[in-house]
C-alpha cells in the first residue's frame, strides 16, 4: 500500500502558453511581479552564482593571496594534486565515516523521538519544545559544551564513567566518537522534526485497520508506518546526509583537526584560509560541492526520493 500517488495531470491544453490572450491587466501584473521579484532574483544570483563561478575559475590557478603577482594558470593541475594526495582520500574516508555513523544514529533516535512527540498525550508542546532545544543551539556552542564535557581536566564524562584522566581527544577513534556524539545530539531533533511530519500524514484508519486485523505493534511499525513514511524518511536522510558531509564546526572546536579527524571541509579551510592558497582551496571546495551534488543525485535518482513531499505539494 502506498500513499504516494501521481498528481492529477492538467489537460495538455491548459499547460500551453497563451501569451496572445493576456489582458492588459494581466500583463501589467506580470510585469509588476518581475519588478518586485527581480531585484531579489538578481541579488540571489549575485550572491550564489557569482561565488560559485568565481571559485571554479580560481581553482584553475596557482594563486596565493599574499603573492598576487605570482598567480599562474595551471588548468586542472590543482585537481591532479588533490586527487593524487593520500590526505584527500583519508579525509574523504573520515568524512564518509562521520556521515554514515551520525546519520544512521540520528535516523534511529530521530524516529524514536518522532514517535514520542506524535503519541504524547500530555504536555505535547512542552515535550516538542524540549526535544527541539539542541537544534536551536548554535553548533559552535554545542561543540564547546561537548568539548568541555569530554575534557580530561574539567569534564564530567570521565568522572561519570570512572575513566580517570582518559584523554578523549588524544586518539583518532575516541576523538571521532566525541565529534559524532556532539553532532548526533545537535541534529537528531531536526531529523525527528522531518520524520514527525511524515508520521502525521499517516491516517489513523490504517493503523486502526491493522490493529483490528490483529497486527502486533512491531508489525504495525514495519508494515504500515514505515512504508507510508518512506518519502519523509528519504527526504530527512537526504537533508541530513548533505549537511553531515560538510561537517566543520564541531571538529574545528573539539579537535582543531588533530589526530586525523580532519574532514573535507577542513581541507578546504586549511588550504584557503590558513595557507591562503586560494586556487588549491577553491579546487577542494569545487570537489566537495560536486560530491554533495552527487549525493543529492544519488538520493533523487537511485533511491527515488520524492522532494515534493518537502515542498508541501502533497
Amino acid at each position, binding site marked *: 500500500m502506498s500513499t504516494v500517488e501521481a498528481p492529477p495531470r492538467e489537460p495538455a491544453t491548459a499547460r500551453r502558453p497563451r501569451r496572445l490572450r493576456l489582458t492588459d491587466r494581466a500583463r*501589467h501584473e506580470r510585469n509588476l511581479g518581475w519588478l*518586485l521579484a527581480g531585484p531579489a532574483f538578481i541579488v540571489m544570483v549575485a550572491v550564489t552564482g557569482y561565488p560559485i563561478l568565481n571559485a571554479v575559475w580560481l581553482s584553475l590557478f596557482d594563486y596565493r593571496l599574499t603573492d598576487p603577482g605570482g598567480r599562474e594558470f595551471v588548468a586542472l593541475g590543482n585537481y591532479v594534486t588533490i586527487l593524487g594526495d593520500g*590526505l584527500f582520500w583519508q579525509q574523504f574516508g573520515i568524512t564518509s565515516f562521520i556521515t554514515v555513523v551520525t546519520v544512521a544514529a540520528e535516523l534511529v533516535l530521530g524516529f524514536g523521538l518522532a514517535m514520542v512527540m506524535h503519541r504524547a498525550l500530555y504536555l505535547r508542546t512542552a515535550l516538542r519544545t524540549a526535544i527541539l532545544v539542541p537544534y536551536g543551539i548554535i553548533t559552535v556552542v554545542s561543540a564547546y559544551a561537548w568539548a568541555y564535557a569530554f575534557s580530561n*581536566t574539567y569534564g564530567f564524562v570521565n568522572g561519570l564513567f570512572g575513566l580517570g584522566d582518559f*584523554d578523549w*581527544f*588524544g586518539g583518532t577513534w575516541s576523538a571521532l566518537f566525541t565529534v559524532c556524539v556532539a553532532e548526533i545530539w545537535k541534529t537528531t531533533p531536526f531529523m525527528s522534526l522531518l520524520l514527525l511530519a511524515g508520521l502525521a500524514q499517516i491516517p489513523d484508519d490504517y493503523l486502526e485497520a491493522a490493529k483490528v486485523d490483529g497486527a502486533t505493534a512491531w508489525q504495525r511499525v514495519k508494515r504500515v508506518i514505515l512504508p507510508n513514511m518512506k518519502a519523509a524518511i528519504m527526504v530527512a536522510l537526504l537533508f541530513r546526509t548533505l549537511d553531515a558531509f560538510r561537517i566543520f564546526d564541531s571538529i574545528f572546536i573539539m579537535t582543531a583537526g588533530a589526530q586525523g579527524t580532519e574532514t573535507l571541509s577542513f581541507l578546504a579551510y586549511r588550504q584557503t584560509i*590558513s595557507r*591562503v592558497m586560494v586556487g588549491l582551496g577553491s579546487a577542494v571546495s569545487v570537489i566537495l560541492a560536486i560530491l554533495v551534488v552527487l549525493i543529492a543525485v544519488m538520493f533523487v535518482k537511485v533511491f527515488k526520493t520524492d522532494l515534493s513531499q518537502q515542498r508541501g505539494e502533497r
Partner: protein
Amino acid sequence: MVLENKPRRWACGSALILVASILSGCGGDDGGSTTLTYYIADAAQEDVATRCSAESGGAYTFNIQRLPNTAAGGREQLLRRLAAEDRSMDIVSVDPPFMAEFANAGFLRAFTAAERQEFSNGVLEGPLVQSTFRDTLWSAPLYGNTQLLWYRKSVLQKAGVDPSAGPVTWNQLIEGASRAGVTVAAQGRRNESLMVWVNALVSSAGGSILQPGSENLPADEVKGGLDTEAGAAAARIMHDLAVSPAAPAGFSTAGEEDSRAAFQAPDGGFMVNWPYVWAAFDTSIEEGSLPADFKDDVGWAAYPRVDAGTESAAPSGGLGLSISAFSGRQDLAVEAIRCLASEKSQTEFMKKAGNPAALASVFDDPGIREMFPMADQIREGLDAATPRPVSPYYGDVTGSIQTAFHPPDALSPENTPRESNDLLEDVLSNKRLI
C-alpha cells in the same frame, strides 16, 4: 494606472534604499577623522590605549577591535582583512612570525629610517630582530617573550636534577621526573605552540627549520633543514617525553594553559612556558585553587638544553604594532604608536598582562623587579631567544611542521626528519596538501 504606479514607485524606492545602504557600507572613511582603528591581541592593550588617547589631548582616539585568542586565529583575521585592502584598519597587533608574510605581501607600511631609529632605541635584541624583515622595520616592538624552565623546588631532590645549580638537558628532566613520579609539561597540542617547541628544539641542537637564506627565495625553491641531526634530536626528545611516565595526561592536546594546569597539579614537577604563568599563579591563588604559599615552591631557570655542552635556544615570541598599508591615517598612527609602545606603556602592560617588555630599561623598574623576581632571566632569555623561521610563506611552514610533528608519541628520530622535510618542501611547492 494609479493603482499600479504606487507599488512601482514603492519598488523603485526600496531598490534605491537598498543600493544606497550597500554603497554606504563600502565607504565610511572620511579622511579627516582622528579615530584610529586599533586591532589588539591582549585585553591589557585597551587600558594603555585609553590612557594614550586621554594624554593625546584629542589628537586621536581609538576604536578598539579585539583579535581572536589564538595566534592562528589572529593571523587569519588580519590576513583576510589586509588582503581585501580593508581601509578601516589603522594599527594592527602582529605576532612576530607572521610579520614577514604580511610585509612581503605589501600589507604593512614600512617604518622610515628615522622612525626605525626611534622605535629600535633601547629595544632588546630578540624582539628587534623579529620586527625586522629584509633590513626594514615593519613593527614597533610592544613586548618580547621567551620561555623559561619552571620547576617545583620540592621535587628536585627526588628527581636528582637541580636547574638552579646549572643548565639541565631534556634527557635529564625526563629521566629525573620519571624517577620522582612527577610530570614535565610542554605544549604537545597541534597549533602554533607545537611549532614554538619544535623550533626551540631544532635551534637548540644547532639546526634551523629552513635553510639559511631562504627568506628571499620563491616558495618552490625554499629548502628545509629538518633532515639533519638537529631534526632527529627534536623528534627523539618529543617522542621520549610523550611516551615517558613524565608526560602529563592529555599531552598531545596540551596548550600553554593545560601545561600550567599540569604543573599546578599535585604531581607537577617541571614545565616549559612563557613568563605570564607567574602572574597567572597569583590569579589561581586569589581564586583559591592554589595554596597561598604555592609560589614559594616555584623556581625558574634557563630553557633546557638538547646537548649538555651547547647553549639552549629559547623560544621567542611577543607582539609588534604595525601600520596597515591601506590606512588613510598613517602619520597619526605613528604618533599613536609612540605612546602605545613607550616605556611607560610597556611597563604598565607588563604589570597588567605579565608579558615581558621589549625595552631593556623596563626591567630596571623597581615595581617590575618586585613583581617579576625572574626579570633578569627573562631579559637574558629575550636577548638569546631564537625567532621562528622568517619566511613570507610562514603559514605553509608552520602548517607542515604541525602536521609532521604531531602526535609527539608517534615520532621517530629515524623517519620524522626526512618525512617532515619532504612534506615541508612539497607543501611549499604546491605538490601536497596539509
